[in-house]
């Protein structure tokens, strides 16, 4: 998977339902407690089942339209993001997971390019921080004419996410937030 370096140069905010601070807090090794808000029309039971698929030992509780659980960065990408409003974006990403990078076809837009670069950056931060450091080093040199070869684990996870997005017809997750610590006031 090859992404033009210019796409990483955009600093604008993206509309990801799993916001930057959550990716920052996640890492591959340490799971973090999160609160998943499920849309009114969807079932939190289905969301809990999907998140807990192929894993054991996680404490998951459903309260009203919320699911309390723990996720790693990879699980956030492969199990949560496909259930959000980024479902369609992940399906479009799948069409791009090929060696030659093109733009402007299959409904792909410049916004999608920015989203993908942003998402790759978040995933690298959580799972391969040294790879992100290398990317930032290249960007600091100022020559953005080339491209960046994304470590193969990332497209593999994106494909997995796209498969789940394909399997679900709606996006049941409204938002994801970190479980915050409360203090005595």
């Amino acid at each position, binding site marked *: 998977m090859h992404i033009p370096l210019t796409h990483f140069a955009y600093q604008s905010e993206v509309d990801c339902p799993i916001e930057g601070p959550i990716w920052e807090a996640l890492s591959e090794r340490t799971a973090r407690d999160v609160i998943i808000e499920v849309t009114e029309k969807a079932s939190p039971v289905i969301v809990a089942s999907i998140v807990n698929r192929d894993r054991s030992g*996680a404490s998951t509780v459903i309260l009203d339209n919320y699911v*309390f659980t723990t996720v790693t960065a990879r699980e956030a990408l492969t199990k949560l993001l496909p259930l959000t409003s980024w479902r369609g974006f992940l399906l479009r990403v799948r069409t791009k997971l090929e060696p030659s990078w093109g733009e402007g076809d299959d409904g792909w837009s410049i916004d999608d390019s920015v989203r993908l670069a942003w998402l790759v950056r978040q995933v690298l931060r959580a799972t391969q921080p040294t790879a992100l450091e290398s990317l930032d080093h290249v960007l600091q040199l100022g020559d953005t004419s080339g491209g960046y070869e994304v470590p193969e684990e990332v497209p593999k996870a994106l494909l997995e996410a796209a498969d789940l997005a394909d399997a679900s017809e709606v996006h049941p997750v409204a938002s994801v937030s970190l479980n915050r610590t409360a203090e005595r006031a």
Partner: protein
Amino acid sequence: MIRSRSTVKVDAADRVFGSGEQAEVTWAVVDSGIDRTHPAFADEDGVSRVVLEIDVPQGLAAIANPADNYGELNDDKAWQNFLKAANVTNQPRDLRIGTDRDDHGTHVAGIIAAHARNVRAPHPNSPEAADLPRTVRGMHPSTRIVDLKVFDEFGEADDRTVMTALAFVRWFNYRPRLVEELGDVGPIDGVNLSISLAFDPRQSACGWSPVCQQTTKLVESGVVVVAAAGNYGFQKARGKILGAGFDLVSITDPGNTERAITVGATDSSEPHRYGPIGISSRGPTADGRHKPDLLAPGYAIVGPAVGGRWTALTGTSQAAAHVSGIAAKLIARFPEFRSRPDRVKRALLDGATDLERLPDYQGAGLVDALRTMQLL
């Protein structure tokens, strides 16, 4: 609590309105747990007015069995199971974090409902000893207290435990009275939230975090919710620039909830002179609403502590507890306001005393029990 009772004119309200026939009022304290054996909570027969004790982390742990795929708290059966695991009423409690006693919940509950006679400080030379009269009364001493302990044995609480506690109150109030299991407890008229969760605008809109949404649902269900504004008004001196260190837009969750009654802290005896104390969080909210709603005493408030002790604590926690107690008094005197939390909030704001500070520092002003009740 001693001086502040007259500061918020609870003593005057008691004289004017008397202690005649009043409705029973029950208030939940979502906090670190309450020492129910403290003499401050004993009624005339020596029975504790802390009528129900729920250990929320313990209940959640029972529901979230890792052996199962997930646990649900969405039906009667699940809540009954939660209650079975979490109900620690009358069990011996160890309200400590490590070797320290955790006084916070006991203190807050005492401001609302303490009534202790023949009070003696355990250490005659302690600072609070000089302040202790023989009788100590909270804002509305006949209030029955439900202890919703959300802090665990490590002294930690989070969004989940607080949200679960709030949802529990909704479930509890819509159930037919659980006389068989719990005795005649409730319904719960109000909830005190002397807790604070940092608001992160990158994760949710202000007032719309999951815990704020749960707070709103609880108000919609007819329960008065009083929340501390937070203690982030002044963090620390930043250089020598005048005003540096004071933070506007420092209200925390669940105080950011629009329909909660959000309370900042003022001095216990001279609120007109001092206005909000330094640490008391200031508004506006990040989305531009005026908060806090009210100020109440929150500086060096003497109240009950774990193990039969008395101690002085400072913060918006203590301020919120004053307003909870006054709201309880209002409902006891005017029971038609039960299940009308927005009307109770309006009454408290209408009756407040203007301290001539900016709205985002004082809200409507200092809570005033007498004027509030006279206006009704």
